[in-house]
Every structure is written in C-alpha cells, then in structure tokens.
C-alpha cells in the first residue's frame, strides 16, 4: 500500500474541516476526488503535503510505510509526495530552472545521491519540457511570475515530471485550462503513469477524467468521503450534480 489514510481529522483556526477521512491508494492506481466547493478537497491535499496552518486533530496517515504526519513538508516531498497546487505561487527573483535544480538536488541529497551533472540536468529538463509541452522560454523566467493560469498549471506538471514522485496529488489542475491545455496536461500525466506510482486527481469536472481515466472515484462532502465508486460515478455526478449526495446518507458509501 502506498498511501493509507485512517480517520483523518484536521482543523484550521479551531474550525473542524476534515472530519474523518479514510482512503487507501496502491501503486499503479489513479484516484479521483470530486465534490462541491468548500467540501475540503484542497484541505486534504494541504494536510497531506504538510501545510502548517492545518492542525491534525486525529487519525493517521502511512506513506510507503512511514508515518507521514511526523515528517516536515520538505521530507514528505523527498519521500516522494508531490502536490500540484491549485494556486501555484509566483516567486519573483527565483528562476524556474534554479528552483528545479535546487529541488532535485535536495531530494537527491536526502537519498545520499550526488547532485546531477549539469549535462544530465539539462537533458532531463529538455525531455520533460517536451513531455508536457512546456515552453522552454518559461524555464528561464522567474518562477510562475507573470505566467498565465494555464502556464502555471503546466509548470506544475513539468515539475512533477522532473521530480518523478511516487504519489502525485493534482489539485484542480484542470480548472482554468482550455481543452488543448487540458489534453496536454492529461497526456503528460498518462505518460508518467506507471506501476510504481499513483495519482490522486482532485477535480470539479468529469471532463478531465475522460483523459485521465481513474480507477476509483470518491466524493468528498463536508470533510468526509461520502461516496466511492468507479469511473461511472463521475458520469453520474456530472448528470445529477451534487445535491443528491448532500443528503445524510453516509451509510450508503462503500
């Protein structure tokens, strides 16, 4: 088991947001998490990535056998967890490429590997740029500064490709993307999928799941997973909306 979340509860400023999440993800799987705005999807992603303003008030998370919640955010990343941000941060003055080199080498150092040679790094950069059709000009610019919404999201997937994590959480990577950009992002993810890694795809729309076909679909509502199923569940949600899952029918969930 790559990720095992048991009864995870978390609060922000004394407001309970995650109210007992259970989720198991195996290597090779793609899980989709859907749900109305404000149900706690980004919060779940944030808690897993280690965002400090969330206080974990209960439950446990094992990542590749390790107690994830004990690790610092940087060590979670070094262990192979990757969060593609819903709102990537702009950092003027930090070049995209310098940032990536630093990240890659810090992760390598954690695994007692020497820094990548300049040549290898360049090669890796080129390959992955192509994979996600990321404009080479953007790699030398300041991190996300002045990028369009789509460019920012594509940069997240470019970073994902560069860092090659075990578990990737994509938080609404599809929102704000036109259909071409969406296809490019989905293609990138599909090429990166393997038996050794897994993806949690948080999305609002069924649309993305036509391109990244999930093994499981979960519905998050009011801090709990209220329904789980296969990819057909996404279609049903698209048709019926979320109202029907909002009834207190938690017993129905699988």
């Amino acid at each position: 088991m790559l990720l095992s979340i048991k009864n995870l509860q978390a609060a922000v400023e004394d407001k309970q947001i995650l109210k007992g999440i259970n989720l198991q993800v195996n290597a090779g799987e793609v899980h989709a998490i859907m749900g109305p705005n404000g149900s706690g999807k980004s919060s779940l992603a944030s808690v897993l990535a280690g965002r400090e303003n969330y206080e974990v008030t209960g439950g446990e998370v094992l990542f590749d056998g390790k107690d994830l919640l004990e690790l610092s955010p940087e060590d979670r990343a070094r262990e192979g967890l990757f969060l593609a941000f819903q709102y990537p941060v702009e950092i003027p003055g930090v070049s995209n490429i310098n940032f990536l080199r630093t990240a890659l080498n810090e992760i390598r150092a954690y695994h007692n590997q020497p820094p990548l040679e300049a040549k290898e790094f360049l090669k890796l950069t080129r390959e992955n740029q192509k994979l996600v059709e990321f404009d080479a000009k953007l790699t030398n610019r300041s991190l996300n500064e002045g990028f369009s919404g789509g460019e920012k999201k594509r940069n997240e997937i470019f970073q994902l490709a560069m860092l090659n994590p075990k578990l990737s959480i994509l938080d609404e990577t599809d929102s704000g993307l036109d259909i071409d950009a969406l296809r490019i992002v989905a293609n990138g993810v599909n090429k990166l999928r393997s038996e050794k890694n897994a993806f949690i795809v948080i999305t609002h729309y069924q649309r993305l799941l036509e391109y990244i076909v999930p093994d499981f679909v979960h519905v998050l509502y009011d801090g709990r997973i209220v329904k789980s199923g296969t990819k057909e569940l996404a279609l049903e949600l698209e048709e019926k909306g979320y109202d029907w899952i909002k009834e207190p029918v938690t017993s129905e969930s699988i």
Partner: protein
Amino acid sequence: MITTTSLYDQLISFYNNTAGSGQQWLSDLRSRAFEAFSTQGFPTTKNEEWRFTNIAAFLKEDYSLQPGAATLQDIKKSNGIPSFDAHEIVLKNGMLNEDVNIRGITVTPFRAALKDDRLKSYLSKYISLEKNAFAALNTALFQNGVVIETAKNIIADKPLHLIHVYNAEDPVFVNPRILVIANKGSKTEVVESIYVKGKSPLFINNVTEAYIAENARLDQYYLQTTAPNVRLVNFTQCVQSSDSLYNNYTYTLPGADFVRNTLHLDLNGTNTESHLYGLYLTGANQLVDNHTSVHHLFPNCMSNELYKGVLMDNSRAVFNGKIYVHQDAQKTNAFQQNNNMLLSNKAVIDSKPQLEIFADDVKCSHGSTVGSFNNEALFYLKARGIGEIAARNLLVNAFAFDVTNKIQIPAVREYVEKLITKKMSEAYDYQ
C-alpha cells in the same frame, strides 16, 4: 558634542602639524574645514541626521592617526572576487605605491595631485562642511588617497578595482580621500573593496567626490564586507552635468560593526540620469546606516533609487532618503523605494523616505516597506523538497534580485550573490 579627549586632542595636533603645508587655497580650505568640524564636533543622536545612529562607542577607542605599514599578506587574488578582470589599484593605508597605467585614465596619489591648482575647483566644492562633521574632518586632515581622472571621450576598457588595504594591528583612525573626475563623453566603472589586516579597531572616515561632465558615465560600486573591528564612515558627493549618467551600487554585508554611508547627489544640468542601488544584509550586532539625498536642480532629469535591506540577528539598519525637486526642475522623474525584510525579532530598521517638491510638473514617488518571509512561497518551495535553509536563501536572493541584477559586471554580480548566501548561512539567529 563628543570630545573623546585623546582622539580630539590628537586630531588638533595632527591638524596643526599638517594643515599649513601646501598652497594657500588648500590651507584656507583646511582651516575652514577644521573650523567647521570643531564647531560641530562628532555628531550625536541630537543631530537629526544621526538620530538613530549612536557612534559614541565607536569613537572611544585609543586611536592613533598613524597606521602601521600595510601589507598584502594573505590577501586573495582580486580581493576575493573570482574572475574579476579589472585594472587593480591598491591603496595601502590610502597610499598608492605603484604606477598605474591605464589608457586614457590617470591615477595620481592625492599628495602629488594637491600640487595642482586645478584641484581647487573640485575639492569640497559641493560639500556642505558646516553640516557634515566627518567630511569636514576629512577635508581638514586627509593626506592620502587618489585622484582618478578619465580623459575626454575615453571609454575605459575594463573596470577599475580600487582595493583599500589597511593595517589594524593597533587602533587607528584614517581619513582617505578619493576624487573621480569623469570628463566629457567618458565612461568609467570603479569598484571599491576593502581588505583589513589585524583585529584592532579601525575607523575609516572616507570622503569621495565624483564629478561627471557632460555626456559622461560613471558607475561606482562600494563592496562593503569586512571585519567586525572596522567602523566605516563613507561620504560621497557626486555632481552630474547635463546628459550624464551616474550609477551607484552600495552593497553592505556582514562584517564591519558600523557602516554609515552618506551619498549626496547634485544634478547640476539638464537631462541627467541616475540610479542608486543599495543592499544591506546585516547580521550579528551590526549597525548599518544609509543616508542619501538627491537634488534635482534642473529640468528633465531622472533619478531612481532602490535600497533593499535584509536584517538578521541583533543588527540595526537605518535608511533615510531625501529627494529635493527644486523650483526650476520641471519634468523631473524621481523615484525612491526602500524595502526591508526583518528576519529576526531582535533586529530593528528605521526607514524614512522623504520627498520635497517645489516644482509643479513632476513625476515622483517614494515608499518604504518592512516585511518578513512570505509563508506561501516558503511552503511552495518546501513542498518541492527544498529544506528550510535553502528555501530561505532562495527567497532572500530573490528579494535582493532587484538590486543584484542591476550589477553590470558579471563577476561582481556573482560575487555578491554568493556572498549573500554565505553570509546568511553564517548568521546565528534569524527566523
């Protein structure tokens, strides 16, 4: 008035022994300067220009005005700036011992240059001695330093690297003097750095005057990273003529316990352009004070000032920037910005941008900010596997980027960027 008896008495006797020599105009100037200094004394915090900068402790030492011999022992190549290809001018205790041959540029020891009456029209011509005690003291006493003059229409092939070497085996108080004359249409870059041997208190009271003639360009870089025993008072008076360009880069990094930079810029012609970039990265118990004033006297001039500060440990910094737009200076563009990052709750910044406008058709802005790390940015970097220290280094370098990326000499730029990272990792307490 501070009258640290031993130092003060020494200054008087030094003055009495040296001032009479040389041309009449020079003795007159020295006498006026000494008078101005004696009337003011060393500045105290009662002086508005020194309100946050108490120098009493730095003057208490048992200074001598006669430094021991300065040697280049242990000095690194290019004073530690890797691959810096420049014309090196080494001043030992302010003295130039070797001839420097640069096409179109003369570098003359001040002592020799003083024999030339032409200097009368430059020396302390624009410095208000009555308001600047340290500059007055320097004017009264200085014996050493250099005059750098770039001939008409000469474009220097390489930057000049002025390395100030001092002997601080015993406490000393020195008054070096620099005069830069950039003649019409010339272009010169001068980088100054300091090397100090010895751990005794060293008080450097430096005065630099720069005259930039029509259509000339001068870039001055002050690289101020030295040892804790150094107290540096660095006064610069710059005068620009029409259509000239002046760039000043003042970078102060951990090292000297006390640094005070005073930079006065007189825009004495139309169509001038000036950029003042400053970075102070302060650590330990440093006190770093930057005072600048820009005088727009003629129409159609542009001045742009950006000073950025990063404060760590128990350090203190002062920024005071003044822009005066005089009545005749229509169509002035004047900008000033001071941004600070406070990385320790024990560090203190006093920032005061000031703007006084007496013309009506101008574009001016000024502002000052104090902040800390952007937590969103920190988390983003950490979420990519970058550790706390590396993440902070990246963000501080990013903050400083606006001023470091203005450095036009790649070797100097790289040196400053690396130094930022190094000095940050040496800080003992920042949060």
